[in-house]
């Protein structure tokens, strides 16, 4: 059977499963559509959160980022998991107790302010739209590589599948498809990783293999990797980072951004009890960790594999000839994600780091520049091919990459559409809308959101590449502090909250725009995006944590200078803090 047929079976089979689930889990009420009826088991919800959270970026890009950056990019591993500790302790149980459908609804009610609710809706939409474009584009790439269609056609097929289960089933359909997608994606991610770990270290668990002995050389794997890449002028993989302040703030921005992202928070609204919200955060992190503990192993092993493929006799000997390159290099060359240029016309593939320090060595070896450019996003997708794994593993990776992209896309689309139909239409434009009318509005908004996301996925605007800066920056600087103060302070009032959210948001965006261009339009940045220009060495991607601090300070300062929140708001805060009892107070 050809590889194409195998891929088609895996991808087609998984899509048929998602559609079957959608038909089974049709939403009958707004409660079904927004919170899956509110009866999801915490372990089921943990799995759904896992798929909701692990996007094309986690599945496809993260290992490549770590492979390229080594220790320095551990920030993504800690940042994208540590946020769940904050969710479990600072937000999820209380927002579940509040018992409404959307994140802006809590902000609007707690700060008794329509303006606060609108600021939250705007933040939610910008963060989620930026995020969803990457998912759609990721689905397009996976399709074009594995199913040999052009990426726009792939994108449209993916959009139709999401359309069926998201519009039909809302949160209910999304929950159960996410569970299926989690299973597909985790199997797809771990199986090739186990194979590669066995090949390189004789250890079946990749996370342990990462710190084991490289069988062939007898050296520890990471030491071997350091040796190979430093011999080619690259930075030491395990090298420490000088700018610790920036590393801390970047990790913190990712953590509080994770905790503040609405598409993750609303998943906690689907469990029956406050206690279940706490458990599901734990289960979510268990399911997420299965991938996140494996990713760093995939990163270092794939990097070593790539190097030993190009330099089979070691980095100080000759690299392979271009004509003798493996098939996977040819396949990825066709997608343009691997490019080769024979700069010194010797027919060999010289892959090394073009740095001034390495220049003398390169010249001595007759090299005239690095000849192979490998897009780091292909690392996970090409992993099974690099390691010569059987064709069904490649089919599995295709299905897994699509599952990761589609599950996150669906969660984001639900966050967007529930916010538009519930916060804007029911909350402001037409408060007397009937239950049936609101369900219809939610479905129409979802359809529109899918069409917009598909269009933007096919024609990504400049800001689409700035998911980390935009989505995490906004969630960290604006949403997370507002939610946390809403629960942990009775004193922060409407004026304080709005002033805090706006100042955190504006500070963060302005700092990002100064270095990355105003509204990300190339050439409009005021300062070059280099560490010398950064304030105290803080990169624009790390500034969200500082924005959050400003949000807290401004909110407390303005609140203490103005009146206390009304007594019923203080009772509302009491009621979200206790799973039982005080809850009735706000209903009087």
């Amino acid at each position, binding site marked *: 059977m050809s590889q194409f047929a195998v891929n088609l079976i895996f991808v087609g089979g998984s899509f048929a499963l998602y559609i079957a689930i959608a038909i089974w889990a049709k939403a009958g009420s707004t409660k079904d559509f927004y919170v899956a009826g509110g009866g999801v088991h915490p372990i089921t919800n943990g799995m759904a959160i896992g798929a909701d959270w692990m996007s094309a970026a986690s599945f496809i890009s993260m290992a490549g980022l770590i492979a390229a950056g080594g*220790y320095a990019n551990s920030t993504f*591993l800690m940042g994208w998991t*540590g946020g769940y*500790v904050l969710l479990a302790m600072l937000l999820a149980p209380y927002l579940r107790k509040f018992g409404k459908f959307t994140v802006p609804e809590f902000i609007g009610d707690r700060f008794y302010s329509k303006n606060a609710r609108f600021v939250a809706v705007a933040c939610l939409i910008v963060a989620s739209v930026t995020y969803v474009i990457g998912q759609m584009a990721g689905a397009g790439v996976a399709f074009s590589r594995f199913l040999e269609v052009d990426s726009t056609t792939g994108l449209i097929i993916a959009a139709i599948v999401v359309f069926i289960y998201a519009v039909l089933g809302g949160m209910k359909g999304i929950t159960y498809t996410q569970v299926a997608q989690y299973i597909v994606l985790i199997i797809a991610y771990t199986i090739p990783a186990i194979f590669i770990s066995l090949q390189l270290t004789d250890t079946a668990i990749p996370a342990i293999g990462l710190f084991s002995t490289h069988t062939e050389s007898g050296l520890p794997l990471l030491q071997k990797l350091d040796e190979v890449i430093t011999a080619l002028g690259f930075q030491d993989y395990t090298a420490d980072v000088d700018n610790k302040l920036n590393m801390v703030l970047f990790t*913190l921005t990712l953590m509080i951004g994770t905790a503040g992202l609405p598409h993750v928070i609303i998943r906690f609204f689907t469990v029956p009890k406050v*206690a279940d919200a*706490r458990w599901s955060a734990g289960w979510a992190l268990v399911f997420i960790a299965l991938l996140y503990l494996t990713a760093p192993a995939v990163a270092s092993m794939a990097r070593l594999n790539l190097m030993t493929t190009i330099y089979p006799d070691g980095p100080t000997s000759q690299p392979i000839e271009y004509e003798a390159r493996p098939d996977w290099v040819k396949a990825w060359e066709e997608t343009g994600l691997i490019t080769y240029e024979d700069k010194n016309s010797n027919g060999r593939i010289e892959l090394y780091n073009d740095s001034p320090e390495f220049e003398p060595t390169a010249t001595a070896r007759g090299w005239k520049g690095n000849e192979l450019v490998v897009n780091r996003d292909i690392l996970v997708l090409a992993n099974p091919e690099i390691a010569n794994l059987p064709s069904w593993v490649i089919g599995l990776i295709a299905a897994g990459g699509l599952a990761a992209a589609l599950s996150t896309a669906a969660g984001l689309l639900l966050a967007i559409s529930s916010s538009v139909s519930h916060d804007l239409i029911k909350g402001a434009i037409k408060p007397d809308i009937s239950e049936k009318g609101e369900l219809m509005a939610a479905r129409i908004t979802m359809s529109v959101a899918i069409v917009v996301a598909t269009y933007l996925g096919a024609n990504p605007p400049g800001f689409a590449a700035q998911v980390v800066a935009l989505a995490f920056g906004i969630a960290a600087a604006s949403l997370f502090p507002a939610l946390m103060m809403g629960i942990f302070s009775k004193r922060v009032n409407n004026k304080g909250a709005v002033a805090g959210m706006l100042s955190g948001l504006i500070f963060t965006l302005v700092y990002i725009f100064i270095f990355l261009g105003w509204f990300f339009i190339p050439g409009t940045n005021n300062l070059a995006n280099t560490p010398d220009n950064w304030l105290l060495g803080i990169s624009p991607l790390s500034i969200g944590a500082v924005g959050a601090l400003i949000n807290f300070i401004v909110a407390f300062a303005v609140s203490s200078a103005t009146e206390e929140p009304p007594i019923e708001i203080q009772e509302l805060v009491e009621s979200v803090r206790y*799973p*039982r009892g005080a809850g009735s107070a706000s209903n009087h």
Partner: protein
Amino acid sequence: MSQHSENAEKYWKANLRLIIGSLCVWAFVSYGCGILFRPLLSGIAVGGTDLGFWFAQQGSILTFIVLIFFYAWRMNKLDKQFGLDEE
């Protein structure tokens, strides 16, 4: 009512103490061992590198899981102890 409030206040204080303790551990393993104290831990070799690298890529995540389950278990018990759990 005042009796009930006092009880509720104690419960909330216990929750805050638990959160602060947990977040100290959370910060210690990630920002501490994984980032800031890595040079201090460089003497402790772990598979070709040092303990700080292990915390940054494995240890902090494993600790986070333990922390959440510990918190959930303690809080769910406190809910019952203070009579504030859901029926």
